[in-house]
């Protein structure tokens, strides 16, 4: 296109969309293999994905840091078991810098539209920085990235300050204010203890009480960090221990009695220990089976809820009129600030409306019955498109970084295969994709995600399918989905030579 400015990476082998854990992880592996023909398109002005976007007070990961990091880039410097979000963001920025990804990154380059070209069998991605052309398109666009606001009548008329937890307004002074927090998920339970310290009044709107287990966080001492630096094997051993322990927690998700009872006990005994008022305890007791929604980890949420300036409203936010927020229980609260911690678009991804495959078909249309992909990575009608951290990759019990790495291995093997076969196009058939999706649906039907009696962000409410969820051990994902099997793909066409 004539609007494009000169760019050596305008026309490449691989276009990666997104510079979060997935996109950077793939970029690092490509660099380490000596590949140079790839570009990473990022809509924001820095790398880091969720860890760039989420800057709310108290932001941290609920997966232990030694595990929530790349296996091929362990970090001896984590300050604690559950490191603050800023440290994770710094880790990703350092990784991008030190692994030499700088020249491959294009910022302010939002994927406005990606289109498969039937003539030269290649992808074109249109961005505000012009068009990019690639043999292979990798959607590393994540699923905890596009914010979701609750559908509450009058919300837009709120006269106070309103923002989403992932778009925190740090310019607005919150001290001494009357603040409402909407939601009690993973973000909210980290935010509430922080705001409780500074708010005049804090109201927490709880649609459904979460299960909360002890966090068991701890600082890594200087001596420990020094050991990690001197003997990398000690970091790896901790990572392996955490991984296999976390993976064993899948037994509870699969509703095996003893393990389910143990998980419940860990949460409910924590509640009993921290909350003595029976009325409040009842409000904080979940009404579904543990693990159906994400299990949260916190030692300071329940204490915060019991502060005199904090009120737990055990009802959803129903409507807003001016500065008044009404709960579904009919209570009215005068507020200066509303913090909306209601999560992200997870089942109907905005990015899927921007990717067009064969016949100009939008990925969102292909996914109108719920998103799905063969081995969570490839979809019918979208040749040479690979998805990272997309459908069928979310876990309630282990680290998604492990899942992303398994997908990267599959993708690298696919790229190797293309190199060895004259750049032939890789595309799965609908039959193969559907068979894989059917197996996942059947697996999910045996897990607490489907059977736990709740509605969670792992479910697609249009059809009740757990399209986001990998319904098995994490290790099983690597066993099944990391290997690349060329026989599963049709591969007739060849990408045209690059200009």
């Amino acid at each position, binding site marked *: 296109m004539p609007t494009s400015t000169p760019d050596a990476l305008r026309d490449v082998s691989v276009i990666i969309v997104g510079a979060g854990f997935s996109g950077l992880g793939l970029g690092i592996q490509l660099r380490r293999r000596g590949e140079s023909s790839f570009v990473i398109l990022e809509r924001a002005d820095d790398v880091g994905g969720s860890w760039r976007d989420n800057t709310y007070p108290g932001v941290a990961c609920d997966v232990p840091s030694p595990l929530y990091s790349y*296996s091929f880039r362990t970090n001896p410097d984590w300050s604690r078991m559950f490191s603050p979000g800023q440290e994770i963001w710094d880790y990703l920025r350092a990784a991008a810098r030190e692994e030499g990804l700088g020249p491959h990154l294009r910022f302010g380059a939002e994927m406005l539209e990606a289109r498969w070209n039937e003539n030269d069998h290649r992808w074109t991605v249109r961005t505000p920085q012009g068009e990019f052309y690639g043999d292979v398109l990798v959607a590393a666009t994540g699923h905890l990235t596009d914010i979701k606001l609750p559908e509450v009548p009058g919300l837009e008329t709120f006269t106070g300050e309103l923002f989403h937890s992932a778009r925190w307004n740090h310019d607005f002074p919150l001290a001494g204010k009357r603040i409402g927090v909407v939601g009690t998920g993973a973000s909210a339970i980290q935010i509430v203890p922080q705001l409780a310290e500074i708010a005049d009044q804090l109201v927490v709107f709880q649609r459904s009480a979460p299960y909360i287990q002890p966090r068991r966080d701890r600082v890594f001492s200087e001596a420990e960090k020094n050991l990690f630096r001197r003997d990398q094997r000690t970091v*790896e*051993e901790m*990572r*392996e*221990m955490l*991984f*296999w*322990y976390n*993976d*064993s927690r*899948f*037994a509870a998700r*699969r*509703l*095996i*009695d*003893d*393990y*389910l009872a143990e998980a419940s006990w860990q949460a409910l005994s924590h509640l009993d220990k921290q909350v003595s008022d029976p009325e409040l305890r009842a409000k904080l007791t979940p009404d579904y089976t543990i693990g159906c929604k994400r299990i949260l980890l916190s030692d300071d949420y329940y204490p915060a809820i019991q502060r005199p300036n904090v009120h737990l409203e055990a009802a959803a936010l129903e409507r807003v009129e001016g500065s008044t927020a009404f709960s579904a229980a009919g209570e009215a609260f005068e507020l200066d600030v509303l913090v909306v911690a209601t999560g992200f678009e997870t089942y109907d991804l905005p990015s899927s409306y921007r990717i067009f495959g064969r016949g100009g078909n939008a990925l969102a249309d292909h996914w109108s019955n719920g998103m799905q992909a063969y081995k969570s990575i490839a979809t019918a009608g979208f040749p040479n498109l690979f998805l990272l951290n997309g459908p069928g990759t979310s876990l309630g019990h282990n680290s998604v970084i*492990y899942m992303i790495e398994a997908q990267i291995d599959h993708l690298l093997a696919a790229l190797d295969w293309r190199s060895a076969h004259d750049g032939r196009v890789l595309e799965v058939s609908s039959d193969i994709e559907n068979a894989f999706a059917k197996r996942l649906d059947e697996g999910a039907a*045996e897990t607490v995600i489907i059977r736990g009696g709740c509605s969670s962000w792992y479910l697609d409410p249009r059809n009740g399918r757990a399209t986001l969820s990998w319904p098995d*051990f*994490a*290790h*099983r994902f*690597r*066993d099944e989905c990391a290997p690349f099997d060329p026989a599963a793909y049709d591969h007739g066409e060849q990408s045209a030579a690059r200009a």
Partner: protein
Amino acid sequence: MSTASTVPATAGDVKENHGSLHIGDLEVNFFDSVDEHSGLPPIVLVHGTGGSARSHFGFLFPMLAAKQRVVAVDLATPQGPPDEGQIRMAEQVQAVIEKVLPDRPVTLAGYSLGAVVAATAAGTRPDLVGGLILMAGWLKTDAQQKLRNDIWRALRQSDVEALRRYQAFCAFSAPLLAMLSDGEIEALVSSFRTDDLMAAQMEINRHVDLTDVAPKIACPTLIVAGTDDLMTPFRQSKRLFGAIADARYTEVTSGHAMVVERPAELVHLIAAFNANPNQYPAGAILPTRRP
């Protein structure tokens, strides 16, 4: 063997049938997940010293049963000479296989004493076993193991409470014990058995010798050793690796109690081996897993 009965029971969410058969005056119980799920061979689990299908395989049984049929044997402790113990127990396993899973290859997986029993069963009836997994097993009881056995016996006479503490100390890896709270340690300690049946199994342990039977094992075999195992040190597993022709070897970072310390990793190893026993060739040491 004579009578058999089958009554429904449940283990967690997995449907299973409970059955039993008799060999002489010994009653042998077993659990069968029944549902085949797939074309994969069924897995037969054999527990270790002082354990049962339930106590050693509370995790492995239901989680493996999600993908293939699983049968777990509750070994009966024979009262005869201890050096015949391994063969008497192997006969029980063979009888369960012939009754429940006749005329089809099974993957036989034993843990601890169960590994000794499974190896004996596979070596004496190669026709029954298509694949063999030996977790924390050993080839022939050595002086280090006899010393531990001596201490066990002496403590049982003098101080049963100290014996329980000693068992916890020996069964779990140092790193695992180091992480536990006082309450968790006490809970572990109180879970150990010191009864007469346990003592009889300890006598059988003293007399284990697979030297003659190991070379008769013909099927693909996976040896799984615990790096921090004090009861059946990993070098014993390496001896099995040397003695069994079609064996491959791997280690898990664990003490002897690998079914408790690394159950998910065992599910991975067993399921992967059952799906493709020859993924790694005879003589291979599996690549190190770096999750």
